[in-house]
């Protein structure tokens, strides 16, 4: 994981900047994207708003939980999609769905917290099982847990309703708003993702996140400084699971149904692909990866047919794209963007230096 060094400003800088300064420090790109996202309902069709952007944001949140573990902790967990799906299942089981013989019809304000807490506990438990392993073994154990959950949900009919799962799950109505409406649902996901994003950035510079980066870079020294590395990693699984669980609630409201396929091996691996393609070094990476993934999934069919190929091959296109990006840049699209920016800046500096103009100083 040495190449994935995730840097944060020092704890001191973190302490000294208030919210206002943190906002003031964002670059223009941040403000353009933020403004664009806020006015999106005015410019985008409902299809784009929900099927593309809201969906990408939800997947991005799940991938963000993986980015937190992998980028800051060096832990590659394949269980994040399963945590999300478990939360989604709990929303269906505890709340309301078309499967009336199973669903308990709790109100949303009881369903959601219980779903998030239980799914997070599941995440912590998965962490406890896999945390003593490293690298490929962590991947294998978390994949085994994910598969076990998949087969459990497929074969259990009393709780998970087996193959068909649950349908007819609707987002709640509260504060006089139907959160299933296109615009309301879009803002709900956007708000949740913004919170999760800010939380990850904040925690990365808090003692917990800083120590997590310490366990990634030098676990032996962390133990010699008084840290229980194993416990710290399990706690990181817990933090990541909370984000994944909230995303799972949004996911089931988005899909309005949930079935074993939601957390099959395909989607489980897709989250890894999204996070890696986007870039694991910064929390924005997973969202970029998710947007690219959703766009490819949605439009590669048309694109392939346009050039006379079988539209069913979109997985091939995604796979190829994944391969190219990982080959070109170990840090995904973020890494590519950063290199382009660096080259542009150097080029401009070189030009100003040549012209001997002002601002040519290093």
């Amino acid at each position, binding site marked *: 994981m040495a190449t994935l060094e995730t840097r944060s400003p020092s704890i001191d800088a973190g302490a000294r900047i208030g919210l206002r300064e943190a906002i003031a420090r964002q670059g223009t790109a941040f403000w353009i994207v933020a403004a664009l996202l806020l006015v999106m309902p005015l410019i985008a069709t409902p299809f784009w708003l929900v099927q593309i952007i809201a969906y990408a944001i939800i997947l991005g949140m799940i991938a963000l939980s993986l980015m937190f573990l992998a980028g800051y902790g060096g832990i590659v967990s394949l269980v994040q999609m399963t945590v999300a799906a478990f939360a989604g299942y709990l929303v269906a089981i505890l709340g309301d769905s078309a499967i009336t013989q199973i669903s308990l019809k709790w109100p949303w304000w009881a369903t959601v917290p219980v779903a998030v807490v239980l799914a997070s506990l599941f995440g912590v438990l998965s962490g406890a099982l896999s945390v003593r392993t490293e690298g490929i073994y962590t991947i294998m154990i978390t994949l085994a847990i994910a598969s076990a959950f998949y087969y459990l949900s497929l074969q259990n009919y009393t709780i998970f309703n087996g193959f068909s799962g649950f349908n007819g799950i609707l987002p709640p109505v509260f504060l006089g708003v139907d959160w299933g409406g296109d615009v309301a649902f879009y803002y709900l996901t956007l708000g949740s993702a913004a919170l999760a994003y800010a939380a990850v950035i904040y925690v990365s510079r808090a003692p917990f996140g*800083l120590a997590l980066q310490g366990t990634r870079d030098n676990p032996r020294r962390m133990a010699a400084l008084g840290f229980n590395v194993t416990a710290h990693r399990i706690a990181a699984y817990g933090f990541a699971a909370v984000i994944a669980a909230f995303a799972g609630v949004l996911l089931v409201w988005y899909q309005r149904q949930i079935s074993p396929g939601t957390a099959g091996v395909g989607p489980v691996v897709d989250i890894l692909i999204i996070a890696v393609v986007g870039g694991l070094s910064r929390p924005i990476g997973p969202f970029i990866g998710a947007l690219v993934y959703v766009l490819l999934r949605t439009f590669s069919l048309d694109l392939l047919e346009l050039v006379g190929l079988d539209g069913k091959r979109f997985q091939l296109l995604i796979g190829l794209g994944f391969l190219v990006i990982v080959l070109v840049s170990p840090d995904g699209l973020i890494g590519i963007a950063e290199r382009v920016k660096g080259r542009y800046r150097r080029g401009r500096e070189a030009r100003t230096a040549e012209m001997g103009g002002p601002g040519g100083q290093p």
Partner: protein
Amino acid sequence: MSRGARPASAGSANALELRGVSRLFGALAALSDITLSVQPGERRAVLGSNGAGKTTLFNCITGDFAPSSGIIRFFGEDVTAFPPYERIRRGLRRTYQISSLFAGLPVLDNVYLACRGVSRNRYSLLRPRRDDALVHAAEGLIDAVHLTAVKDQLVGELAYGQQRQLEIALALSGAPRFILFDEPAAGLSPTERRDLVHILTGLPAHIGYIIIEHDMDVALRVVESVTMMHNGRIFKEGRPDEIEADPEVQDLYLGGGHG
């Protein structure tokens, strides 16, 4: 583990007590049957040629490696089966012969982590406030090792000597009761060596330490007792002047022209 449960004899117990500690690496006995006691506040040098087992001794005391046999007590408490972090939380500290730092983090964060590790709230999700006591403590330690000018620099970008100084700062965090210094002077400039001697002699009297050091000028100036090691065994203990005068020691070590 309640702190009150510590043996009542803690005040009179040895800071460090090893009984029959051995450590094997395959067939190689890096340590064999080491029995050693160090009193609270005592300062001792461990000397010996390359491969004598000095670093392995430290690794067994801190728990980085478990000893193959033997018992280790820290202020009267049997810590043989404790993981390293439990020993550190009880006041043991160490530096590494080969700097073991967080290269991707700034100097301040390195020291801050060391201060956090021996405090409560290791899992705090809240960023430190402007007046955070641990940030101040970290800044104080950085000042003590003369790194204030580079406190915001990434550790990977520091000069070698500065990294060695930082190693020492990490070992001074919190409320140490006993510190293990593994060749702290190696690679330091004469000025930095003088600073090091200054730091060591300036430590509060209740803090004892063991220092592994090849440079006799440093080692014998900052300790009151010396343990000589050879091939994983202790073969002589005494005051610095006794050790210096000992013909056997001179043969084996001082005059031996070791690397």
